[in-house]
């Protein structure tokens, strides 16, 4: 005798958090049943494997039905079919949109297109995240990206409004969208040591300071359809253009020497790696300024993180600078520019360096 049909429908939709996790993790029903058996639930409840199988199937079916709604979370709140308490709705959404660190590192900065989706197989093998779960996470990225891509206003705010995510998760998604939109390269071997947290941190700073939305007040009367740049998703083109002006800091030999002497005077005796710093100053400064001046090219924007690591972090690391010395150096390095009389782009320099300094500090680890 086999059960052809086996369902349970509650007036309040029952959500089993453990089963939800298994479902999100992409386990098949039979795998999930196996895992639940191993968790010792049968002994605790005195249930049989058949009961567990039926229960798991039932939850999976419910989740499958809810998935359509989870794609547009506000619908989950307004729909009438599933009566779910608000706290549970929030939990469903939050968990559905949560992603694996390992997975996100693989796709961060990649184009969220079908082509990449074919690579999900490889990512699944590499990260140990099931293909199903990879699909869900990838589709989540893509869905969020599509919705907020063209939207004006705060990126994280838009995401939170349209997907009802918690603050933290919305900001993570903002980072994912920002990376995907600007296609920053993060997959190179030398960037592997960076965590998603590091990159999300950088993204947040860049969104805050380097996008058109960052200039403080918005244009008073924005033409409705001529807006070319999105407020938060793209880097501020004007700003990138202006960054060329910084080149004078390394191109003008006097200015460079003056800058170096100002920094050296201030830091003498305070750095454990002072000689190395002194010897490398010009290289480091050239590196940082050149990165800035090249950001008008899309290709160089993409390589921003690679350049930062190659031009600054690796040299420091090979000389074994302690983190604190890096901090002191960067502070002094950016502050001293204000004392350079011949340099007129103080505000531009600050907008560039404040963000860059924080990013570098965050990225400076093993």
């Amino acid at each position, binding site marked *: 005798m086999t059960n052809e049909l086996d369902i349970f429908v509650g007036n309040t939709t029952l959500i089993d958090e453990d089963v939800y996790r298994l479902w999100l993790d992409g386990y098949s029903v039979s795998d999930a049943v196996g895992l639940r058996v191993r968790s010792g639930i049968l002994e605790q409840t005195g249930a049989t494997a058949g009961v567990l199988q039926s229960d798991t199937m039932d939850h999976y079916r419910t989740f499958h039905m809810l998935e359509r709604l989870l794609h547009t979370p506000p*619908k989950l709140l307004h729909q009438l*079919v599933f009566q779910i308490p*608000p706290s549970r709705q929030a939990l469903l959404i939050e968990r559905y949109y949560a992603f694996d660190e390992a997975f996100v590192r693989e796709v961060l900065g990649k184009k969220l297109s079908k082509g990449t989706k074919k690579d999900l197989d490889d990512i699944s093998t590499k990260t140990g995240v099931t293909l199903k779960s990879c699909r869900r996470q990838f589709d989540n990225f893509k869905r969020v990206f599509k919705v907020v891509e063209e939207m004006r206003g705060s990126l994280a705010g838009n995401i939170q409004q349209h997907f009802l995510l918690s603050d933290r998760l919305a900001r993570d998604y903002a980072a994912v969208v920002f990376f995907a939109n600007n296609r920053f390269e993060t997959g190179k071997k030398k960037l592997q040591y960076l965590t998603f947290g590091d990159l999300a941190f950088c993204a947040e700073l860049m969104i805050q300071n380097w996008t058109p939305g960052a200039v403080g007040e918005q244009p008073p009367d924005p033409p409705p359809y001529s807006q070319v740049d999105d407020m938060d998703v793209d880097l501020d083109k004007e700003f990138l253009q202006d960054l060329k002006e910084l080149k004078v800091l390394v191109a003008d030999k006097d200015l460079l020497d003056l800058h170096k002497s100002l920094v050296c005077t201030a830091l003498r005796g305070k750095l454990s790696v002072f000689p190395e710093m002194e010897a490398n100053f010009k290289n480091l400064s050239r590196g940082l300024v050149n990165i800035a001046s090249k950001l008008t090219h899309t290709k160089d924007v993409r390589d921003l993180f690679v350049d930062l690591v190659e031009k600054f972090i690796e040299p420091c690391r090979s000389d074994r600078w302690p983190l604190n010395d890096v901090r002191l150096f960067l502070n002094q390095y950016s502050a001293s520019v204000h004392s350079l009389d011949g340099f007129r782009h103080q505000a531009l320099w600050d907008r560039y360096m404040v963000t860059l300094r924080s990013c570098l500090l965050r990225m400076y680890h093993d």
Partner: protein
Amino acid sequence: MPGKLKVKIVAGRHLPVMDRASDLTDAFVEVKFGNMTFKTDVYHKSLNPQWNSEWFKFEVDDEDLQDEPLQITVLDHDTYSANDAIGKVYIDIDPLLYSEAATVISGWFPIYDTIHGIRGEINVVVKVDLFNDLNRFRQSSCGVKFFCTTSIPKCYRAVIIHGFVEELVVNEDPEYQWIDRIRTPRASNEARQRLISLMSGELQRKIGLKVLEMRGNAVVGYLQCFDLEGESGLVVRAIGTACTLDKLSSTAAFLPACNSPSKEMKEIPFNEDPNPNTHSSGPSTPLKNQTYSFSPSKSYSRQSSSSDTDLSLTPKTGMGSGSAGKEGGPFKALLRQQTQSALEQRGGSPHRFCRNREFPFFTLTAFPPGFLVHVGGVVSARSVKLLDRIHNPAFVGIMGNTRSYKLLDWNSFNSDEPETRDAWWAEIRQEIKSHAKALGCHAVVGYSESTSICEEVCILSASGTAAVLNPRFLQDGTVEGCLEQRLSWQPGFFSIGQEENLPAGCGFCHIPYDELNMPFPAHLTYCYSCRKQKVPDVLFTTIDLPTDATVIGKGCLIQARLCRLKKKAQAEANATAISNLLPFMEYEVHTQLMNKLKLKGMNALFGLRIQITVGENMLMGLASATGVYLTALPTPGGIQIAGKTPNDGSYEQHISHMQKKINDTIAKNKELYEINPPEIPEEIIGSPIPEPRQRSRLLRSQSESSDEVIELDLSHGKKDAFVLEIDDTDAMEDVHSLLTDVPPPSGFYSCNTEIMPGINNWTSEIQMFTSVRVSRLSNINLTNQTLNKNFNDLCENLLKSLYFKLRSMIPCCLCHVNFTVSLPEDELIQVTVTAVAITFDKHQAVQTTKTHVEKSLQRASTDNEELLQFPLELCTDSLGSHPFSPAKEHLESASSNSGIPAAQRAVSVEKASPLTEGHFRQRSAPACANSTVGVVKMTPLSFIPGAKITKYLGIINMFFIRETTSLREEGGVSGFLHAFIAEVFAMVRAHVAALGGNAVVSYIMKQCVFMENPNKNQAQCLINVSGDAVIFVRESELEIISTQQPIASCQPACGGGEIAT
């Protein structure tokens, strides 16, 4: 023209994409009532249209208002081709027709399509202006209130309980009309939905008219059913109890609430104007029934042989209470009566008004205190009928024009036709009535009717509990006549006053029949409570446990399950075969119930419901009831096993082994259900003793009972134990199957009555659910044994699954567990269960002597605690007013869960608490803050624990059809039905919310007919649900309101009605 219906279409949301090119929809709405149609403008290119229409006004008769549903169709405008239908909403406007119910229907309704399911929602406002019409000959019955609840609704007082009302309406089933061959499945489904909606409207109106004739103003225990007879048509029938109800004043509504049937009933004024004429109309002649018990097989063979001539195959059975242990058969209660005389009697009084007198039946299962005087036992009758086409006049079948659906009331139309459904039921009711009479009872309570149809064979069943009622509540003269008659048998037992002096809670157990002229052999003893009257050793009833009954320990769900194979046959042969099988099934079901009851150590069954289902090649019987130990009845004897082949060593050993197992089980069950009756010396039994002494003794023994050592086996030797003879393998199987029923896991109880006897400290956490299973019988060579085992396993596994699923609610009780079995196809068994799980507070059970204030505080804190412990409970309670520290309460409750293994307890607490890990994040999420959908609770019970019902908004009675031609794509049969049931719940909730309510009580899924054809990738399902829409207020909130300003403010606790956008 007594009514003006006004409809406004506000907006839509979440509409489906109808235009692939633009991914948008050009939606407009058609509003139809009767044959008038209005249309809104087309709202172009939007999935969330804002129509904001004018008020569409329909000026209609109140007759139409009652019959017709308001039909709202959402369509996609298409310039070049026909407009595509998105879906429909049917709104029953009946609740707007009586003054005390809802005044406006306003809210979001799911847009439903029979092929695609729910496709978005529409916001509609509906109002009715009624003009008074004092026309005596009116056909409408506006103003009569309907309740599904089978007790007097909570905020009403019964002035008079008039009695039984019934009606049925017949029509051709659109599914089987010739036109169905050329129309789409959607059109066919919609025709069917609409027809049934019309028919039930008409049925309700007609019942209402009968009630008005009886000078009542309400129908309580209204039960409406559909018989899908296939080719032969569609029958909609309803029964109910006509009452005159008085609304309790608002101050009374704020009295300390009691969940049990209201105590306000105590002082019902004596009805001072009994109609003197009615006295003579009743059958006050002495019983002339030839009542005798006999071997069932014999009688039934005779019955069926006679039936061959007239096709009316009616095995007539009655089931009394009581058993006769030594004689072996519990089915000595078999009654057979000549219905001939009764039918003649009926013919003499064709007037409807008198017919009500003829059937002193009550569909109520719970009664005002003092109403129920004695209970005789269960009476039931079944009849096998062959269906033939209902001859409809030619004008039916013109589709489209609404009034051409002129419905047929068989009574009025074709009354010369002998084989009418009406006559069939009349026959069965007559049968029931005479069974009741044989039990010395003048009335039948807890009465219900059902059918099972397979092809052209139909089993009609009716059952109820024979009872003697207190005539104070009844206008009916019949009752008094009977009562007199009864009293004349038993001199010295007259006045009600004396009756009331008896110790409470045993009166209803006393036998109503004549001891010297018993209808069936039964063991009588003197009542264990009062020692004055005789009681049977076992009592079976179909009603809820009376509130004043005293029980020991807790109750439990008892089920008897049975299958019998039957040869496939046609027409008459088939009917004959079935009616030959029926008595055996009844007998076996009864035996199983009795055995299981004894095994549980209990002595009474309440809420008994026996369902016999007919299929192509088998019959299934499923009986459910709640077993309890009534203090008034004797301690049940054990079960003794006797072998038929003595002098066989190993066999004897086996027998004794079995005996031991059974004894162990009884002992274990007694412990589990806390059955430890006070021990009463043998000599007291059988000799009435002076009352004062008896009383004091009783009190003492009760107070001692808690710390008394349980001596379990005491009665086994002395009493007549129930003897099971094992003479072949069949009997062996039976004994085995007795022992296979496993008790629910600790922390769980289950019953099929309203509430669990022995548990009274409910928290307000409830979860109503429906579970459906369909099993395919694999092997072709089925035997009765394997079939029985399969069926038993199916039910047991289903229960196990429920316990597992609801484990987070422990300690909890499944109440009103309602099993339904159907046999949709040859090898398929479908079991549908609807029940409500209610969490109770173990901790609180001990402290019964609390002052009201303390109690209310505790209650408030319980709510508080729930919030913490069970996220299932939607957070609608305000936290601010609760004085207790949540954390403390939390700990307390955790520590009180002593029945659960520690590890598991920890898990459940942790998992359930929203304060623990994984939750803190969501606090900040916006989803918590702005949920816009009001919570609507659903329960099959007539009350909501921890809350007070302040208003009844009207009856909900909905019928849906869902069909698919892409079964695989919708997740197979399970996915299809799961989605459909969820949608049905959603539509019920939406209608309740639109009425301004926040709960449905007495909810019942009356039908769930599922048909599949996996080869064609198709499935179809029909669901019929009903219940009462209400507004409830949490008791904790109620007290706050009443202390602040004691006025009747009937605001729903959750603001369920209004949905802000």
